[in-house]
């Protein structure tokens, strides 16, 4: 096993201790903004906007959340976010997996070229398509609708890559046996490949969920009316003082937007890291 800080044979393990202390220090700095988000969400503004602030929530209450729901159409934002995120995640799961299967297992003219073109699109910044896509979405009258966010988010090249890499590691025997029995690729895809690929599909779902829940710039552009916002767009408006200038209420909104991805990550942590590894240790 490669060990950067080697364990000496005798005496206290100072190197390991130093590594631990350094990592804990980094963790505290990394986690603090999240900690403060939740503390200030459940603490009256008088206790957080003062010098020194109450670093521990001694006056905890849900009053900020109550006022948030009165002052801004948060319930609409929440529903929009949930609908858009679920739709995009479902699209990614279906279309990424289908495309990944085609690249991993099916043979057709231009396969390598198409895959290379797909991969190179990673380098195209989404800002290049921002203006034309906005013009397109306005011309087909989808501005302010969830579809305006969902349609351009139909698939994800990284997800396709991940599925392809994963499927290439699967043994071919089952497919070949099914093919000998006259099964079509469609049947093989649904009955053999999809069940065997659940870890990779789970990773695609997780990335799809987190990235579409957190998406900001594109929804900000195509969702322009208060009730049509997603949570991040709404929270940004709240943060700019458009619905309330109450700091505690702003942080309550932030906490509300942050909770789903945090819970999601904690629940599916293992798939998350496994998925990243499939992508990282290439071919």
């Amino acid at each position, binding site marked *: 096993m*490669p*060990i950067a*800080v*080697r364990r000496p044979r005798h005496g206290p393990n100072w190197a390991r201790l130093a*590594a631990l202390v350094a*990592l804990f220090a*980094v*963790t505290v700095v*990394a*986690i603090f*903004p*999240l900690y*403060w*988000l939740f503390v200030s969400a459940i603490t009256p503004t008088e206790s957080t906007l003062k*010098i020194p*602030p109450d670093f521990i929530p001694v006056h905890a209450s849900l009053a900020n959340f109550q006022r948030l729901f009165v002052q801004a159409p948060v319930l609409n934002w929440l529903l929009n976010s949930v609908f858009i995120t679920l739709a995009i995640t479902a699209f990614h799961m279906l*279309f990424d997996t*289908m*495309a990944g299967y*085609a690249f991993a297992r*099916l*043979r057709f003219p*231009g*396969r390598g*070229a198409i895959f290379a073109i*797909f991969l190179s699109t990673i380098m*195209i*910044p989404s*800002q*290049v*398509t*921002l*203006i*034309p*896509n906005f*013009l*397109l979405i306005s011309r087909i009258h989808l501005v302010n609708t969830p579809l305006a966010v969902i349609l351009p988010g*139909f*698939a994800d090249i990284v997800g396709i890559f991940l599925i392809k890499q994963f499927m290439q590691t699967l043994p071919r025997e089952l497919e070949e046996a099914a093919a000998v029995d006259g099964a079509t*690729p469609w049947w093989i895809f649904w009955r053999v490949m999809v069940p065997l690929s659940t870890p990779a599909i789970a990773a695609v779902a997780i990335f799809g969920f987190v990235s579409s*829940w957190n998406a*900001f*710039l594109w929804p900000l*552009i195509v969702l322009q009316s208060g009730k049509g916002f997603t949570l*991040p767009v709404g*929270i940004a408006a709240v*943060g700019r003082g458009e619905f309330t200038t109450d700091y505690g209420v*702003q*942080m309550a909104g*932030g906490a509300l937007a*942050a909770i789903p*991805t*945090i819970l999601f*990550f*904690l629940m599916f942590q293992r798939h998350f890291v496994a998925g990243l*590894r499939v*992508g*990282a*240790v*290439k071919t």
Partner: protein
Amino acid sequence: MSRPLALGRPGLAPAWQGSWRRALERSFWGYLFLLPVLLGFAVFLFVPVLWSLWLSFTNTGLVDSEWAGLDNYQSLLHSSLFWQTLRTTALYTGVVVAEAVLASIVLAALIQGIGSRRLATFFRAAFFLPAVTTPVVIALVWRWIFNTQWGLLNYLLGLLHLGPVKWLSDPSIALWSVILSTVLTIPAFGVVTFSASIGSIPGELYEAADLDGAGPISKWWRVTVPLLKPTILFVGVIYTISAFQVFDRIYIMTSGGPGFATTPIVMLIYNTGISNWHFGLASAQAVVLFAIIALVSLVQFRLLRSDFEY
């Protein structure tokens, strides 16, 4: 890999006539499975990229739409604001990417070094939590940390009888504050990626180095780092692409101000195209951004290429 009309695995290919049908059939299925993605990419990616290029040579706004040749690019050349946003973006990207790559290697090595699976999982989770949290929300907290009157940083400085510093409202400091907020967010993706590649280095290499009497530091530089080159490239490119597109946190923390002190290129595109309806000019800005990202990625690939294969 890109052999035209490859007929499946040669060993399995049946008689001549059958194989043509089979090849056609397989092609049909291949395109069928790709169809949704091909259609989607065509409508929302390939056509828009070309459209963007075309728009950049026109003065398309809300009403006019006339061919303008290189006018947009010429006005960008002479626009000090455009150059300023490019400098802002480059400075932000340079610092953030260098720090992200360095920090993620060091943290991955430290995690590896403590040699405990449980602790490794704990630290990775702790690093990931802020990374999966909505950036807009994290930026709200940073806005408080930097607040001149109530913020955490000025409170801490006050304890040392220093400050107060106008972190976000002083034009000469604001960009550095934004950079600081990014730098202090752990590059979780990099840490996990480096952990995976450090973990996949064969142990024999280290044993061989042991036999040669190499210490931990020379093993690190002579075995680990050279083998990590492809990962450094991969992580570097990914962070460069995302740093060039920074928007969310700046929109929340400073709205690009004070003045235009923290306006990155993407915010300029947003302001020009979406807020002010100058679609042609905004497209020209986007094309330049695209060219820069492509160029930087290419240079990074060249620099670190050696044993990298895709």
